[in-house]
């Protein structure tokens, strides 16, 4: 049972800032201006012994410090529920998750009429603001079921964006280095994300600034080391490749978007939870 619980967490990919739906972009945030995003996430995971449902409302905001440097903050409000397929009753944790803070600096930018290509490294930390000692009637909840990891983490990566009036693609390579707390350490993770967005409406552009509808296809490959719960948890870690078809409506003030990530390949240890799907629905606005 303990092993089963340990593999619950995986890494809930808290959405930070993005033009893609599930990761970041190198597109600019105007100096002195801000952007806010709210994203609803539903993730269902499965193993022979249990199902795990994770629901989250992730709030993210970005602010342009200057034309090249933008800072971002993201925090999820989440509920995690473990439903054993036999025997014991379900266990639930809910509350604020860990706060992610990161900066993005555009190191290279090539602009043309109706197009841009940008490269921007990312550097950030995760602050253990989530709960890591919640109890239910069975006692203290297992660490992976808590809403927070209980330890600080660091993230470094780079994001590349190429955008034209007709299409956009983004790519991000990121590494998350997790810390220890009371013998518990979530797996360290490297992820490669790719996103293609194609304007499907309007077919041809008129004057001014029309709203766009993009068809979206995103790919996420990730590899995690095993979690540590006093010792290495052999039923955790591994690699995954998810694909996510989606849609975006983009106007000057608002972006409404949705995508569903579906596992294509999961190379996981025996007993690990597999993903059924990860669904995302989000709203972004300028302020």
């Amino acid at each position, binding site marked *: 049972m303990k092993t089963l619980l340990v593999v619950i967490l995986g890494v809930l990919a808290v959405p930070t800032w993005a033009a893609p739906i599930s990761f970041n972009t190198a597109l600019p945030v105007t100096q002195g201006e801000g952007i806010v995003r709210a994203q609803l996430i539903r993730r269902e995971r499965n193993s022979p012994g249990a199902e795990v449902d994770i629901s989250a409302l992730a709030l993210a905001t970005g602010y342009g410090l200057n034309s090249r440097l933008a800072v971002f903050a993201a925090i999820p409000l989440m509920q995690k529920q473990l439903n054993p397929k036999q025997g014991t009753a379900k266990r639930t944790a809910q509350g604020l998750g860990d706060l992610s803070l990161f900066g993005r600096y555009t190191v290279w930018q090539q602009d043309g009429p109706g197009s841009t290509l940008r490269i921007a490294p990312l550097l950030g930390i995760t602050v253990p603001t989530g709960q890591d000692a919640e109890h239910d009637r069975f006692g203290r909840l297992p660490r992976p079921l808590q809403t927070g990891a209980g330890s600080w983490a660091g993230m470094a990566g780079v994001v590349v964006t190429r955008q034209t009036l007709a299409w956009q693609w983004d790519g991000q390579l990121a590494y998350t280095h997790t810390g220890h707390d009371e013998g518990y350490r979530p797996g360290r993770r490297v992820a490669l994300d790719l996103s293609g967005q194609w304007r499907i409406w309007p077919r041809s552009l008129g004057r001014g600034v029309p709203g*766009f509808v993009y068809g979206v296809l995103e790919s996420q490959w990730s590899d995690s080391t095993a979690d540590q719960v006093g010792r290495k948890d052999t039923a955790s870690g591994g690699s995954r490749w998810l694909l996510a078809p989606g849609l975006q409506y983009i106007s000057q003030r608002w972006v409404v978007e949705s995508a569903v990530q579906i596992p294509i390949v999961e190379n996981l240890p025996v007993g690990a939870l597999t993903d059924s799907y990860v669904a995302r629905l989000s709203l972004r606005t300028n302020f």
Partner: protein
Amino acid sequence: MKRFTLPITVFFSLLATAALADGARYALKVDGLACPFCSYGLEKRLNKLEGVSDVEIDLTKAQALVDLEEGYTLDEATAKTAVQEAGFSLREFSPVQP
């Protein structure tokens, strides 16, 4: 009352046209502008410039038209800084003749 509607409408239209014609207008060709959401940041930044009364962005032309109130002017260096602060590049700056 109806017979006054047309003359009143024409009068105010002429008045509005005259008011717009009073200030200077500039055309800014902006590189790097390729989506509606990004254009809002540029519009807000240009609107913060002193004397700006209106900003019209056209994505396909990669252009921002900036209208100023009477008595104000805009120079290229100021426009370039504003466009850069929005995250884009100014390619061309020109006054629009009435």
